[in-house]
């Protein structure tokens, strides 16, 4: 795969999002709502916050990302742009990787905006190595995005694609979700070592990114 193709796709997706801000706005609004509503509904103490915060953050990001991933290929479908892309000599893997990294960037922006709000509303202070969150959250986010972009492409030719994506994606994402939640909780509470969960997340990411890149050409040219 030539990096030039992938950079071209990435630049195009970032450029389109910069113009419309559709994905970032919808994700940010949704994730903020979940975080604020959970905080008001449970009014957790600091100890309780440390235990549940990882789960709430991951689930909020997951649902927000799914809403954006459902639209990940919408622009390519609108004017049959995908057919034009299929006819170019550029490899499908570069399109997939460009789209995945662009969506990863959108979700990361939302996470960066969300982080201070989360700390304030849940009165959080990590007991463990807080800096490890900067490793765990991107690893978990990539696991969600790489599968989301792949399965969104798989479901674009189906009639109920908006319903189909979470149905396929979420069961496959469960191991990564578990790893992300457990690693976040370990870091926030400082009770256990998160190393095993981080390694598991990294292995999951490598495996699913490789599979996605290998199989995307088949998905792209399927009728």
């Amino acid at each position, binding site marked *: 795969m*030539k990096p*030039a*193709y992938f950079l*071209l796709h990435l630049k*195009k997706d970032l*450029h*389109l999002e910069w*113009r*419309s801000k559709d994905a970032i706005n919808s994700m940010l609004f949704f994730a903020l709502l979940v975080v604020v509503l959970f905080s008001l509904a449970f009014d957790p103490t600091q100890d309780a916050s440390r235990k549940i915060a990882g789960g709430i953050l991951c689930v909020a990001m997951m649902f927000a990302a799914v809403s954006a991933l459902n639209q990940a290929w919408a*622009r390519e479908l*609108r*004017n*049959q*742009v995908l*057919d*034009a*892309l*299929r*006819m*170019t*000599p*550029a490899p499908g893997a570069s399109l997939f990787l460009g789209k995945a990294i662009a969506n990863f960037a959108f979700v990361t922006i939302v996470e960066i905006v969300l982080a201070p709000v989360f700390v304030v509303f849940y009165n959080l202070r990590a007991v463990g190595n807080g800096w490890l969150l900067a490793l765990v959250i991107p690893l978990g986010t990539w696991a969600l995005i790489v599968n989301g972009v792949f399965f969104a492409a798989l479901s674009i030719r189906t009639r109920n694609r908006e319903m189909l994506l979470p149905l396929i994606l979420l069961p496959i994402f469960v191991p990564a979700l578990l790893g992300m939640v457990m690693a976040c909780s370990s870091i926030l509470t400082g009770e256990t070592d998160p190393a095993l969960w981080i390694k598991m997340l990294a292995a999951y990411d490598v495996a699913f990114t490789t599979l996605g890149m290998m199989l995307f050409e088949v998905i792209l*040219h399927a*009728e």
Partner: protein
Amino acid sequence: MTSKIAELEEVSKLYGTFAALRKVSVSLERGRCYLVLGPNGAGKSTMLRTLAGLLKPAYGRVLIFDEAGEGVDPMEARGRIGYMSHATMLYDEFTGVENLRYFAGLYRGRDCVAPEDALRSVGLDPALPRPVGQYSQGMKQRASLARVLISRPELLLLDEPFSNMDIQSAHQMLRLLETFRTEQRTIVLTTHQRELAEPLADWVLTLDAGALVSFEEGPYTKAQKLTFAGAAAGAGAR
């Protein structure tokens, strides 16, 4: 001497139980223009999409030939085929030149036409700041043709290229297509405006209910075509 560029051998295409193409066999030569006619639902678009490699035939096979006469599947000949459909196949949010720059980048390593020149050749201003989504239907058609042209394809597949176009723009497009044919490129176009495209056609194919019912030589002689090209050039200039 002319050589084959594409061939459909007993091609059938099914959508569920509906046969959109039924055992269609056609051989297309380089530098020729083929006009595909037929009523709605006759299989014209399906034939073009099958030639483009966007649809796989249920039976039969499609081959695209190189200069040496070696035939490959259309998907392996990507980059040598240009396909223009009813839709623009462009991003609505980008301007014409932004769209074309993106697509030109995907044909890296090929001798591409500069996006600005491609837009000028179809009568669009490359400096137009409007996104394609705000173009008129005729402008969208022209921008779509410009996208097809940037990769200098050997085989041009044009599905209803004159729809939504005013007569002057249609003549301008015909004049452009005439120059492609003289460059030994093959054009296959479908249209309901027979009178408009017929002067360009070397061969006229008629499809009905997915079957090829006639394959006839175009009604215009070479001399008449040259006269037509001159007249179209005049109409375009006016």
